[in-house]
């Protein structure tokens, strides 16, 4: 495809509204990428997940697919493959980009691009539903500005950020009654993470409510169930090698395993009800649906796609799943927004029957853009874009460590040193001291107040007064210690 053809496809052959959307997506991607990159560059917050994914890409590009060393999950006692934690085969598609331009900037940009491109299928859905191009542009814009979506630019790098663009194409083909593209996109979506097939299965329920042909009911349910069973009970256990899956721990309060939870559903329904309707869940649900007009996204059958993730988030004992700007609300956000658009069609029809003009849909679109934008306070934290007072010292400390050496660093820094064989975060000295002691370099930032471990005198002296360590850098309370002695033998992972 030549540049001319690309330019015709993207711009020349587009209507004014579509060109406007292209412009909005471009600006959105650039600003989102700029914010994400800036936050990373100034060590604005935890970069642990970024490090895990960059390390996985680095190992994959060196021939060890999905290999990571830096991930520390509760109960883990051996190095884990990324597939042991999440069945995110989708990263394979991004590897060519990383191989060509290795670095965290590539991953941040790809994430921002994927988030921006989610506006395309949302535009197609909205245009088909509300039959107004400008209204569709506004609704697509509102979608990518919704807190669960826009926040992902600045919330590290996570694979769910790449899902909305895929899932929304699944919805689009579902609405268009295009069965084969629907199935293909559904399968590609499933590759994103193990929870996606549950959302895909819900398309069957939606089809059932709409009384569609049986193939629309059976196919997504069968695909979703089969894929989910395969990854949960076959693939991921294979990579975990008898180690526990951290997710099961989050539902232990509801019962012992999946069977126990289902049994309790009937035997002790009060357990479930108490968990679902606690204050924290209500707070989460209100913030999730508020930019979409509260009940508007809940009154269309399309909302069932959000149901598995919504239930998982609300039933979990891990409150992180209910944090709107984290990466647990991309399926819920996308599905509920689709449901909103389908509801708006009815609202728009109702208004037009009562004499409203044809362009009222555009006003509705504008209202949702404003509502989405107004919730910026849920995800924009200006302080994460300010340089830390010891920024230069941190940068110099990183350069002290040779790129091929293993290193333990504060969690703010881990994303900056992840493209190497072995890396871990400073908390390892608390959770797995014998494992942490194998690393050759330790960076300690005694200015840190937000993330653990607390740098006490005792903690500092573990290195400072330890003859096996030599201090090789000390500036502005940032220190680098070099472990003396032989290089680590990573084949003997200490059991702790």
């Amino acid at each position, binding site marked *: 495809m030549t540049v001319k053809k690309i330019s015709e496809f993207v711009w020349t052959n587009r209507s004014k509204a579509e060109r406007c959307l292209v412009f909005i997506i471009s600006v959105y991607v650039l600003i989102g990428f700029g914010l994400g990159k800036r936050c990373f560059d100034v060590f604005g917050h935890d970069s642990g997940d970024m490090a895990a994914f960059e390390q996985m890409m680095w190992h994959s590009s060196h021939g060890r697919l999905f290999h990571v060393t830096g991930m520390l999950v509760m109960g883990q006692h051996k190095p884990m493959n990324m597939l042991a934690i999440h069945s995110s085969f989708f990263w394979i598609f991004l590897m060519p980009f990383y191989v060509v331009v290795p670095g965290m900037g590539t991953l941040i940009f790809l994430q921002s691009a994927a988030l921006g491109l989610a506006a395309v299928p949302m535009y197609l859905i909205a245009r088909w539903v509300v039959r107004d191009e400008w209204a569709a542009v506004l609704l697509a814009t509102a979608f990518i500005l919704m807190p669960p979506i826009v926040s992902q630019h600045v919330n590290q790098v996570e694979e769910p950020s790449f899902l909305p663009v895929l899932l929304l194409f699944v919805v689009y083909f579902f609405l268009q009654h295009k069965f084969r593209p629907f199935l293909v996109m559904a399968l590609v979506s499933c590759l994103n993470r193990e929870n996606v097939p549950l959302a895909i299965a819900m398309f069957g329920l939606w089809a059932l409510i709409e009384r569609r042909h049986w193939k629309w009911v059976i196919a997504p349910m069968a695909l979703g169930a089969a894929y989910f069973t395969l990854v949960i009970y076959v693939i991921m256990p294979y990579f975990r090698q008898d180690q526990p899956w951290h997710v099961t721990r989050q539902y232990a309060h509801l019962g012992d395993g999946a069977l126990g939870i289902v049994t309790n559903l009937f035997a002790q329904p009060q357990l479930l009800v108490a968990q679902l309707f606690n*204050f924290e869940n209500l707070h989460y649900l209100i913030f999730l649906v*508020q*930019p979409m*007009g509260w009940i508007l996204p809940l009154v269309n059958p399309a909302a069932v796609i959000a149901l598995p993730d919504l239930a998982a988030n609300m039933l979990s004992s891990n409150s992180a799943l209910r944090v709107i700007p984290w990466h647990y609300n991309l399926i819920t956000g996308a599905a509920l927004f689709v449901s909103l658009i389908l509801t708006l069609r009815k609202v728009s029809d109702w*208004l037009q029957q*009562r*004499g*409203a*003009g*044809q*362009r*009222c849909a555009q*006003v*509705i679109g*504008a*209202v949702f853009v*404003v*509502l989405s934008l*107004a*919730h910026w*306070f849920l995800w924009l934290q*200006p302080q994460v874009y300010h340089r830390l007072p010891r920024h230069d010292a941190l940068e110099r400390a990183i350069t002290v460590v040779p790129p091929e050496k293993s290193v333990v660093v504060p969690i703010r820094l881990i994303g900056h040193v992840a493209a190497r064989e072995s890396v871990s975060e400073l908390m390892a000295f608390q959770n797995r001291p014998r494992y942490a002691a194998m690393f050759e370099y330790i960076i300690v930032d005694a200015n840190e107040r937000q993330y653990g471990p607390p740098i006490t005198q005792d903690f500092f002296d573990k290195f400072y007064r330890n003859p096996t360590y030599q201090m090789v850098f000390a500036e502005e309370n940032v220190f680098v210690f070099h472990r003396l002695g032989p290089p680590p033998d990573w084949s003997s992972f200490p059991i702790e």
Partner: protein
Amino acid sequence: MKSVENAQPATCHHAVIFPLRRPQIALILLIASYVIVFFLLAKRAFDVFGGDSGEIGAVDNMMWWTSHGYPYRISFAGDLSNLAFHADFFSMALAPVYAIFPSPYTMIFLQSLGLGLAAVPVYLIVRHLWQDEAAAVLMAAAFLFLPSIVSGNLNQLHFITYAPVLLLFTAYFFVTRQFRKFIILALLACSVRENVALGIGMFGIWAWTERREWKWRLTPILGGAAYFLAATQLVIPWALHGHPWHLGKYFSYLGTAPVEIATTAITHPGLVIHHLLSGPNIQYFIFLVQPIAWLLPFGHPAALLALPDLAGNLLSDNDGLKVIGWHYQFMTSTGLFIGALCTMQRLLSRLQARPEWKGCAFLVAAGLAALCMSHWVFWWQPQTYRRLPQHAALVRALDVVGPDKSVIVPDRLKGHVSQRVHYDGINRFPTQTAYASQFEYVILDANERRYPPVITREFFDAFRTNLMYRIVFAEENVFVFQRLGSESDWHVQPVGLGP
């Protein structure tokens, strides 16, 4: 979506009894439910000692003194009356109601009623400007749920909460060009507080931009300026008896006296600009305008009504003035809201002329109402409505103190003991011990973690091991101490203004 011209009376049964159209019935239901719900919420917060009740105590105490023949007197300010703080003459209009029902609940209800009734002029303005009754009701709801307005119900008691309803009626008579009614309402609005007069003066500039008759231009400007000068240069200084006005401390980086502040601001504009562009100011400004769609208020000169208070809040180095949920935004948000209504009228008049945009006023109003309501995070604090673990002990401790006895209490309890000659907050002990020692009773809540003073062992022992006091109540870390000895002669007066 019915335009005013096409509007018909409702066909429901109510219409037979009351000649009201459906939107008007909806408006009445909105106001009634708003007043009841927010009165109950505020009452609940007060009853469960949900937060500081110092301002509730101050208002209740002033009304109590007024109903006993001492207008504006307040117990905790020594020889100063409430007029030394603010020229709020409007409070006297509420005194007859308080005299009949002497209780803080009366004032809480009147406050919610005053805020709820602000929906009426909003409805009238929007109906007049947008020609859409349903949209008018939705915009009335939007105004009532503006964070800075709705929070007025729950942020203790302040007379400035009556400013919006009066200012909005003033604006209504201004847009409908009813000069006499405009003047009367403007005067009434001025009587709420001295700063309202500056907002009233802005109507003159608005009239100037519309090239109205001279009376519309000059009367508000001259009247507002005259009232402001009279209030701030005559009434308040008279009531202050030579004490400095507390507002002088609000611009400390520019100076303390008005002339010094103005001179520094003019001669050192960099200082002002640097302060204006500070982080807290930017955040305050965004949060203030966001529920009214950011730039929307600024498309019309009506937004000028907000300018004096907005400038004051932005220029002040008292960060309390930049808290959206506190009582410093009634003029700013009302003025900006009127600006938004007028800007929208300009946009709608262009759009609604075309059939394809018909009915969009209703949608705009619905969107703005949703936007305002979605900012509940600014004012809704669920913990304020939960009973404290020591609630029952606090109630019993209050019962121990006779209604005619002087008492010093924690901040949460001030509003519950304010109907008496002498009461004050326990924070007076560390700062003005001689004055505080005159009180006969001291209630001490050692569970308190939010409000000063910190109840340390030393602070507690200052009463427990003091032979001048005896403990008369001790439950769940709540204590009542009675001072032994004769009645105080109250020769030591409190120093400094404010509760």
